[in-house]
């Protein structure tokens, strides 16, 4: 980190190499779109590395980078929820014909190789169960049980009270148990 703060390109590359998989994995599981997750991960690293001079060593570097990655993911999901098209067509449509014309068409396109890869990577029972969690629960449970961070570190990363993190993780595990039990019965 000291090296990176002094501006050594090799140190910057090493930070990217060390964190690209965990940061990309978190974002990929949040947005479930490879290209978009790469864009958000790239945005995260550029923000972190361009702001490296403001990094305060009393905080863990991993906490800082995950905080920025999580914010990028959550911001995207919030924007997306505002832009979501109804499956039934535009809310402004006045007639059934207009509704039909503006309805989102599903299943009429062949999958691209990238979509096939995404379906393979995120198509397992546990991945589909994670996808059904609220984004806030998803980030907490992934940071806790995939990345292995302590509750206190997650609270710091996500700017949440410790009690809220504990509640989110508890609820997320309960929901996962329910989904997994349903799928396996």
């Amino acid at each position, binding site marked *: 980190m000291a090296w990176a703060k*002094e*501006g050594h390109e090799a140190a910057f590359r090493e930070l990217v190499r060390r964190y690209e998989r965990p940061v990309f994995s978190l974002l990929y599981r949040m947005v479930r779109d490879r290209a978009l*997750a790469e864009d958000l991960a790239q945005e995260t690293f550029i923000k972190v590395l361009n702001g490296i001079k403001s990094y305060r060593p009393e905080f863990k570097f991993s906490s800082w980078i995950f905080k920025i990655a999580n914010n990028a993911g959550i911001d995207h999901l919030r924007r997306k929820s505002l832009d979501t098209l109804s499956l039934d067509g535009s809310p402004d449509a006045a007639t059934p014909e207009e509704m039909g014309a503006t309805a989102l068409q599903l299943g009429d396109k062949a999958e691209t190789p990238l979509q096939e890869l995404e379906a393979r990577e995120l198509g397992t029972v546990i991945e589909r169960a994670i996808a059904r969690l609220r984004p806030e629960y998803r980030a907490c449970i992934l940071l806790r049980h995939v990345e292995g961070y302590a509750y206190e570190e997650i609270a710091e990363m996500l700017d949440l009270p410790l009690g809220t993190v504990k509640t989110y993780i508890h609820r997320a595990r309960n929901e996962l*148990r329910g989904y*997994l039990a349903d799928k396996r019965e």
Partner: protein
Amino acid sequence: MNPTPMPHLTSEEIELWAQGILGAARAMHLADCSLCRAEAEQERKVILELAQLRRFAPSPDFADRVMAKVRIPTRSGEFTP
């Protein structure tokens, strides 16, 4: 008079048990309490599944794309490129 029953395990205690680091007193409660055992077994399965999730890799040129957009400060305080 019967002693006061021990409270059931919390979510955090179940995690400790799944990691093999639950204290002896609480482990004794777990051994005696079928409700806690059933709950803990189910929780452990979920925790194990999550812990085994793979880490995905971005595209091979990811680091190059990042580095192309990063301003690297020099010792004199200027930026490259």
